[in-house]
């Protein structure tokens, strides 16, 4: 393998990997405050891209993206307020079915609004043929945008959780919901906030990736599966591990392109998901004893 090809694969792997990581973190944020796996997580990413594309007809690109992210955050809040908030200790099965239902509704709504066509945002700089040279590989500058924006998001999130009051409150909910309530933290608002947060990061990822991966009404499910794989791989609930796991999955996928036929590409992440579920359900980096205490 030439150095050029190697760098090409490496950058592709990191690009997709960091997107998977963002989706995985989205799962984790909601899981931590609620104990729910939100099967509609991928739909937030899809909506981000799609709404930004529509907004871009009237607004300049940066404003369109901001508007899309805010709108998707609003949708995330609505989803939580309408479907989750008022349920009294719902069973896991019930939550699985409800979030699946939400994802179907969102997807079908997208289908009726935007149709089946493939769309995309314009490249942030240059166009399809603009390239920059990195480590010998020629890549679109958009790749750098994806990596850059997602990295900033990850850093911002970790600072948010470490240093802001809201972030610490959310961490407290994750550690122990009952105790957090007793300390006067409104867990309900924290849950709404967590939905907004994970909708927002998903939407932003959906915008920056749109020029290179395209947006379509049905990309949510595939992304959700990969994001879930990443979340499990890193150990459910731990966001930094999800970044490592996301990069791992992205790299495995991109380097296997030369070996595994394209038709089976999806099967890689799913096989990885099944393998990890069967062998180490507490994650590659997780601790088994700690995982046993989680609500499953």
């Amino acid at each position, binding site marked *: 393998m030439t150095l050029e090809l190697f760098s090409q694969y490496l950058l592709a792997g990191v690009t997709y990997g960091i997107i998977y990581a963002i989706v995985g973190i989205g799962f984790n944020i909601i899981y931590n405050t609620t104990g729910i*796996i939100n099967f509609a997580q991928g739909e937030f990413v899809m909506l981000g891209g799609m709404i930004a594309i529509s907004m871009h007809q009237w607004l300049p690109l940066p404003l369109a993206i901001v508007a899309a992210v805010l709108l998707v955050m609003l949708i995330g809040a609505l989803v939580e307020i309408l*479907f989750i908030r008022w*349920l009294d200790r*719902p*069973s*896991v*099965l*019930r939550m*699985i*079915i*409800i979030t*699946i*239902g*939400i*994802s*179907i*509704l969102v*997807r*079908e*709504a997208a289908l*009726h609004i935007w149709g089946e066509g493939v769309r995309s945002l314009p490249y942030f700089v240059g166009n399809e043929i603009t390239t920059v040279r990195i480590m010998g590989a020629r890549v679109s500058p958009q790749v750098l945008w994806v990596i850059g924006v997602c990295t900033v998001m990850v850093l911002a999130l970790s600072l948010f959780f470490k240093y802001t009051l809201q972030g610490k409150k959310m961490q407290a909910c994750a550690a122990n919901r009952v105790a957090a309530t007793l300390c006067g933290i409104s867990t309900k608002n924290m849950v709404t906030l967590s939905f907004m947060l994970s909708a927002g990061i998903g939407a932003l990822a959906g915008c920056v990736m749109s020029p290179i991966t395209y947006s379509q009404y049905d990309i949510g*499910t595939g992304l959700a*599966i990969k994001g*879930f794989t990443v979340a*499990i791989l890193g150990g459910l609930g731990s966001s930094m591990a999800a970044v490592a796991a996301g990069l791992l999955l992205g790299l495995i996928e991109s380097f296997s392109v030369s070996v595994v*036929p394209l*038709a*089976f590409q*999806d*099967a890689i992440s*799913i*096989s990885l*998901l*099944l393998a990890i*579920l*069967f062998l180490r*359900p507490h994650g590659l980096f997780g601790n088994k004893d700690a995982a046993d205490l989680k*609500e*499953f």
Partner: protein
Amino acid sequence: MKRHLPLGLLVLAIIGVQLLTRATDTAFYLTPLTMTAYYSLVIVGLCLLMGYAGQISLGHAGFFAIGGYLSAMLTTKNLVPFKDNSLISLCDELGLLVHGQDMFGSAFTHVQPWAACGCAILVTIVVAYAIGIPVLKLKGHYLAMATLGFGIIVYRLALAFPLFGEADGISDVPGFPLLPGLSVSGDFSSRVSNYYLAWGMVALAMWLLVNLIHSRVGRALKAIHGAEGAANATGINTARYKLNTFVISAVLASVAGIFLTHYNGGIGPSEAGIMKSVRYVAIVAIGGMANLWGALTMGALLNIMSLRGMFGSYDDAVFGAILIVIMLFAPQGLLGISLSATFKRILRRGE
């Protein structure tokens, strides 16, 4: 027997509907009704798994597809080029192959439908055990995701292999001659017999499953659903019971796939899709989870409406919406609320 009363009603309904279509000259309804029957087989099997054993499966369309695709592939693949293969000639000697001619008059050899059906069921059982052993150790979201993953893999395989027709699926699947004069096929002339065959199978499945849930095994399954640890400590081999239930429901799905494929004369990848699996789960949930008759009723109603195209292009959206509304407001299922409400009303009047 009290528990066989609904079964009697089912048989009456089956006969009644057929007579009605004859009287009103609406025999074209028999086709969607027959297809509905096969989907109902999947649904009642899944109901046993979800409602009684308490294990979700988001991959049951996978088992339906395994049955349908294998049986379709075996009965349409021309084996003439392979006739020197020792395995093929052994099959031939055992009488498992059918020789004939295709539309252009050239020699055409394919696997006998009974053999194909047996083979498909066998593969289903093997796959269900192989998947079930690791998967059923999982719970909650993990179980849901793992079964979903299995479903997607089946879907991808169906799409990836030219042998399975890729995006087009397999067509021109021959009829399945069950008995002299009774063949599973979409022939216009055998519409009535196929209707009775399909719903007869549903009635048989219901009889078996209703017996099962009222037996020692059914009680054990409910116990596992309610408190798995305590069930295990009561001497129930919980892992094996869950596994057997998984396999039974997989076989029901597979049989449905086999028969519907022969009835439709083909199968496409959408039958293996996630939306199908989700739809099966939705119907079981709407019927009230641990309610075989509820699942059957809702399954029949919704499938008929869907197959008649009543939801138009909003088909999936309707299922999604129903799913959410039921899970939000009536997690016991539609029939669950009305029945229990009716019961309470009757009881109150009695006082």
